[in-house]
């Protein structure tokens, strides 16, 4: 078969989220749930048991009234590359249920392989991984809206954002049928990117100079979460506010974020 296709250049899908634009409306979370067959329960107010692959954090500058400032921070899976693909979660999974794909830069989670040890959840500092504490139940006739592109998860396994990989698959299929071997930037966008009313999320190949994310990640306002840990995430944030950029990492009192050498990859 066609070996030449297989040396397609490695992609590195990533995201840039403009926090100045993000309004905290929550559409990304719901778009994701709807796209990815995420179940819901009667009481979802225990946020530590509530599955939302992308979660919008509300962060504040912790200053008293009226100097209080608030910023919303949507947090999908960061798809950490770590060092050579050894993201915090991938290397700890005992059953190889989660993996880093060098061809896409996407951290996969295979629900049918996972047996629910939850070690990966402990390893992830972003809390991007969710456990199915309950059997998924869709009341009334809601099973009808389930998408066949994403398999519903059984209880007792971990799940997380996969950058809507099923959309990538569909885009590729279309390209193949049209005789192309690769896709355009706009053919593969995640559900949260597409749904965001503010246009705050940009998604694309971080390796591809023609993609919007390539430029955005180099903005002086760009930062990533917990870069100092060496997780090497693929989600970039943009904020014009210094306190927001500083909240992305931990600093010892007196440390100047600008002087910190962050592990760069």
């Amino acid at each position, binding site marked *: 078969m066609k070996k030449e296709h297989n040396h397609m250049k490695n992609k590195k899908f990533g995201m840039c989220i403009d926090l*100045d*634009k993000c*309004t*905290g*409306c*929550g*559409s990304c*979370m*719901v*778009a994701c*749930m*709807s*796209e990815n*067959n995420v179940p*819901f329960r*009667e*009481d*979802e*107010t*225990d*946020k530590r048991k*509530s599955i*939302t692959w992308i979660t*919008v954090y*509300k962060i*504040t500058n*912790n*200053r*008293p*009234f*009226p100097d*209080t*400032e*608030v*910023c*919303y921070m949507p947090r999908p899976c960061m798809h950490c590359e770590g060092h050579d693909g050894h993201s915090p979660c991938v290397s700890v999974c005992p059953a190889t249920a989660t993996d880093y794909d060098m061809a896409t830069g996407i951290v996969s989670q295979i*629900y*049918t392989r996972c047996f629910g040890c939850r070690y990966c959840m402990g390893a992830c500092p972003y809390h991007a991984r969710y456990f199915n504490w309950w*059997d*998924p139940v*869709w*009341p*009334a*006739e809601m*099973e*009808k*809206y*389930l*998408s*066949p592109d994403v*398999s*519903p*998860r*059984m*209880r007792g396994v971990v799940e997380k954002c996969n950058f809507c990989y099923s959309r990538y698959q*569909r885009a590729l299929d279309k390209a193949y049928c049209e005789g192309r071997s690769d896709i355009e930037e706009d053919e593969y966008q995640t559900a949260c990117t*597409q*749904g965001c*009313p*503010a246009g705050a999320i940009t998604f694309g190949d971080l390796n591809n100079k023609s993609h919007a994310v390539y430029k955005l990640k180099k903005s002086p306002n760009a930062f990533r979460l917990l870069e100092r840990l060496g997780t090497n995430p693929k989600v970039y944030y943009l904020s014009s506010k210094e306190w927001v950029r500083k909240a992305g990492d931990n600093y010892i009192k007196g440390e100047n974020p600008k002087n910190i050498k962050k592990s760069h990859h």
Partner: protein
Amino acid sequence: MKIDRRSFLSLGIGAAAGTALTPIPWKMMDDSAIWTQNWWLTPVPAGGEVTYKTTACTLCPGGCGLRIRMVENRAIKVEGLEKHPVNDGGICPIGLSGIQLLYGGTRVKMPLKKVNGKFVKISWKDAISEIALKLKVLRDKGDAYKLSCLTGSDKDVTSLLLKRFINTIGSNNFFANTTISDSYEFVIKKVHNIEGSMSFDLENSDFILSFGSGIIDGFVSPLKMIRAHSRIKEQGGKIVQIEPRLSNTAAKADKWIPVNPGSEGMLALGLLHVIVKEKLYKSNIVSDNTSNFEKFRRLIIPNTTLNKAAETTGIDSKTIEKLGRGFANARKPVAIFGRGKGDSPIGFGEAGLVYILNYLTGNINKKGGLFITDNKKYINWPEIVKDEITNAGLDKSRMDGAGAGSFEDTKYITSRLADLMESKDQKSISALFIYNENPCYTLSDSKKINKAIEAVPLVVSFSSYLDETTAKADYILPNHTNLERLQDVPSVPSGITGGLVSLSKPVVKPMYDTKNTGDVIISLAKAMGGNIAESFAWSSFETCLKSTFKDQWNALDKDGFWFNPGKSTRQCPDLDFSKLLDINLSSIQPQGSKSKFPLVLIPKETMRISSGYIADPPFAVKVIPDTVLKNNDQVVEINPETAKKYGLHDTKYAILTTPFGEVKVKIHTYNGIMEGVIAMSKGLGHIGYDKFINGKGENFNRLIGPVEDPDSGLDIAWGIRAKLTRA
């Protein structure tokens, strides 16, 4: 040969050893694991051909275009329609969850009739003929005018068909839910004496002064506003947000100016003082087109105005002066008003002054400014056919007093519905149709409405869902849901300056025995016979809609919307300042005695909670933060200092009391709120619907009562005095 235990032992060992060499243990181990991957507790969605269908959202007045992903004949996902003038591909949490309203468990599955307090099944035919009979009796008694109707909007074809229907019967008493749009129309009517509304061209403005408008919190046309907000951020426009609480809009604004609740109008006055005194306004505008400006100038120019404004608003006069100058000196300033989502009107006092603020900067009908939009109806139906009863009924004035006397320019005083329902005299409602509205939940003092509605002999609900009001109805004639029905979706003007209509089209076959309300009205009219049937000569709602839109229909059908960016802006006419000379701002003070209720309760509105007639579907409920709802407890926000003062602690229970009732709440201390103010999310505390929606939190509307604006009569209740005590 003796078969002893040893033989069995040997046999057993042999069998065990042998079994290890067969596929049994290995295959069973593998299969049992595969079994857990396919077990019955996890559904397997069926595959099939994927198609997309275009429609429009009817869950809020925003009017977004939708693209529904279908697999075979199942609707899988709601997405935003790209290139749609409102949302261009974006979508809000409620719109996305529309799919759950379609397939969820809160649907009314067939027409129902209440017999002895319980709903029983009834056929469409019987239901319609029974209702028609009751209406005939009403007409025969001379009580035709006692038929009333309440709808969520008075812009769409179905609502207008309902209006036409009750008019034909012989009643003027059509009501629609009143919102900030009513204030806009009222102001335009009052100061310019024309029919029109307002639209704010935020995205092209460089200085947006927002009087508490939740630009990104769901204001009127939420997605249009959010998109405008992003453009503002890109283009470097400034946003100044004036409101007591650090809402999301305030958080994203360049400056947040906390203001005492209800004193926004005074701030506008203060700003006008600065602008007029320092002559920062566009002089040509004042000289060319205005009357009585000098009187107005003399009224506001004394320094006491500024001092009073500073005192009332809690903003020091320096800040007001700076703000006034900044606003007036901006290239393209615009002042937007209407609090939160714009669900409630505001008093003419405040609205009029903010409008003047815009007017004096000369931004009317200018790019980045305020546009006066044409309110002309797109509907040109033949006149209704009247008989004697019709004429007699239409000669009567409205029961609520709107459209006459001091409320001449007001369309509906919907807050008076409760009184009219309870009343035993001539001015009482004997039959009420309710469409796209849930008054038992959404109107102020909902406790009173809930009681009053029981006094109405005939209540007909067209709701698709078993909401609070529908539960009290005598007949339920369920409409198709959002994704099942044909309906026009007229745009609300506040964000769109052009003419825009979208079309909601059925993407799936109706799941249950429901009917489009438009068709039901036509059938009902036909069942009534006579002039009423004649007035509804359409064979079906679809033909009605097609004939209504004529030339636009093709675009609607093909693209899902019809848009003409230039159309519908009105000339900026003269402004008569005399209307503003006796503005009364004291009415905006929250109700209740300050000594008994030392705090002020204000609603908190966000994109994640639908506070209109549609309740939050499960997906949207899922993204409500736990600082708003914890288990089933409503959480209220207060400043840590206030909490300390009243001995309240974060995450602990407290009793919230207002003149209208008390509820148990949980405390969330938050630095982003003024001292002495309590914020409580609006849109929770449903008692209708199913367990995924109801019983969560408390209904804000239960805690406030209607406050009539002395100028317009509209219910402008926003905050209310309250107290918090430790539970």
